[in-house]
């Protein structure tokens, strides 16, 4: 009653909620869900991109890609830390991911088939993520908000590099151009979908908005993404795989055709092209790393014992 009113008043005043502060259980629960999901997305997202480090076509691109994937791992770290401030442990989150209970962004269940996918992920996927994250940087929970500020700065850099790469190939040789167009064709719709279902199918949104976790709805963020990216892609001489796409003079928006939500729900439900493989890759890494973690623990224990003995 009173505490909730005070909590909501703080949020209304634009104050940040910090780890020690009182908060409604539902606020905590929603944040843990969102932040850990976000952390998992960074970690799983390393797989489709990381697989191309060994196949990058120039020293510069290879360097940029290793750096990018490291950044993603780093984002995963910040985000796990941010979630930990809400009383959940890394082990619990990891367990939820490996058991298939926790979600991660639907976009990472699509395969990276050519090198142009790397540029396209930077441009479209990071582009969509940034729209979302810029909003979340305003979020009412201090640690999440601050993590978003830092992550956004790095993602903006990745976004720029991806865009530059795709535009270069769009103006390149016939094969480069075809590769870039094919990548845009495959990633455009999944990028729109990754911003979440329509507002009408997103029952959490009103609560999240009231508590200042989200400050915009999925459809608003999606519209911002399209308004920025559609004209840039067309400008680069590429096409978009949406025959209904058009600029609306009245609203200044680029209007899109119907989204295939059946596909979205199939992917979210575990039946996307790469769901099994992604989870399997994480599980395998975890299982094959067990002896390493045990060795570290045994070594640390022995060191401590030695210290005590002396």
């Amino acid at each position, binding site marked *: 009653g009173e505490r909730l009113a005070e909590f909501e008043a703080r949020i209304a005043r634009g104050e940040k909620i910090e780890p020690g502060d009182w908060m409604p259980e539902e606020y905590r629960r929603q944040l843990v869900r969102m932040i850990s999901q976000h952390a998992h997305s960074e*970690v799983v997202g*390393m*797989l489709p991109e*990381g*697989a191309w*480090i*060994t*196949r*990058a*076509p*120039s*020293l510069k*691109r*290879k*360097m940029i890609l*290793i*750096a990018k*994937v*490291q950044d993603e*791992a*780093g984002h*995963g*770290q910040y985000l*796990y830390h941010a979630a930990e401030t809400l009383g959940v442990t890394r082990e619990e989150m990891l367990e939820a991911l490996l058991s298939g209970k926790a979600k991660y962004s639907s976009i990472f269940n699509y395969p990276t088939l*050519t*090198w142009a996918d790397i540029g396209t992920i930077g441009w479209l996927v990071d582009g969509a993520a940034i729209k979302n994250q810029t909003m979340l940087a305003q979020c009412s929970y201090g640690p999440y908000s601050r993590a978003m500020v830092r992550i956004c700065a790095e993602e903006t850099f990745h976004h720029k590099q991806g865009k530059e790469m795709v535009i*270069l190939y769009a103006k*390149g*040789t*016939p*094969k*480069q151009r075809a590769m870039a167009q094919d990548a845009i064709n495959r990633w455009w719709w999944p990028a729109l979908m990754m911003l979440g279902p329509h507002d009408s199918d997103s029952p959490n949104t009103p609560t999240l908005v009231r508590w200042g976790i989200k400050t915009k709805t999925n459809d608003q963020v999606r519209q911002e993404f399209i308004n920025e990216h559609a004209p840039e892609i067309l400008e680069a001489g590429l096409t978009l795989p949406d025959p209904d796409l058009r600029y609306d003079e009245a609203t200044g928006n680029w209007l899109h055709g119907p989204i295939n939500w059946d596909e979205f729900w199939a992917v979210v439900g575990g039946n996307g092209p790469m769901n099994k493989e992604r989870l399997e*890759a994480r599980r*395998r*890494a*975890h299982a*094959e*790393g*067990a*002896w*390493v*973690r*045990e*060795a*570290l623990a*045994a*070594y640390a224990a*022995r060191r401590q014992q030695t210290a005590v003995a002396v």
Partner: protein
Amino acid sequence: MNEQVKQALIAKLTALADDELILAHRDSEWVGHGPILEEDIALANIAQDELGHATLWYGLRSTLDGSDPDRLAFLRDAAEFHNCELVELPKGDWAFTLLRQYLFDAYEALWLSAAKDSTYKPLAEVAAKILREERFHLQHTQAWVERLGLGTEESNRRMQAALDAQWGYAQQLFVPLEGEGVLVAEGIVPDLGGLKQTWLLHTTQHLQNSGLKLPLQPGYQPTSRQMHTEHLWSLLAEMQSTARWDAEAKVW
């Protein structure tokens, strides 16, 4: 610089760069698959540094003969690569990867420490620049050798297996190129023979302190950088697949 020295230096810079490029490739195969997120980042960071070193050495070669580093990396055939065999070996398990990186770092830190006093200033500068990173790598991989060597029975067994497999290959790091003598005589690069003694001293001490058995049977020791393992062809097929896919592409 006379032509003989120049050709020898070009060959040496290529070998240095090739080692780093191929090692970075193997390390980067771990990205997203490491045993702990923090260590995934640390190894990716090492791979990135090694790739940076490769770029510096190819770049230095480029100042001598105008070669294009990207062409050298992505359009050269296996037979023209002059990396040592150690770095070609498949990544194996975490013990294999970290031990290889340790043996290489221990060598590289010594080589760079000496090479920073090179009479060829551009090489001295690059060596000094890289050395700081290498010392950090060495610290990191040295600690891993100790932790795994003294961790559990299983981790010790895996480290010992990695050492048994790699010890002979690692000796190749100290086999000079044909014609390297002229560079040593000119004070351009350090004498590998001298470095080897220090390396043997440091590594055997650290490996033994980490619960590992030495000396080992020498086993197979590659004696020339014309020689490769069966793995290089497929490694390059993968590494060069994008660059070679479009023969017309001028820029990536």
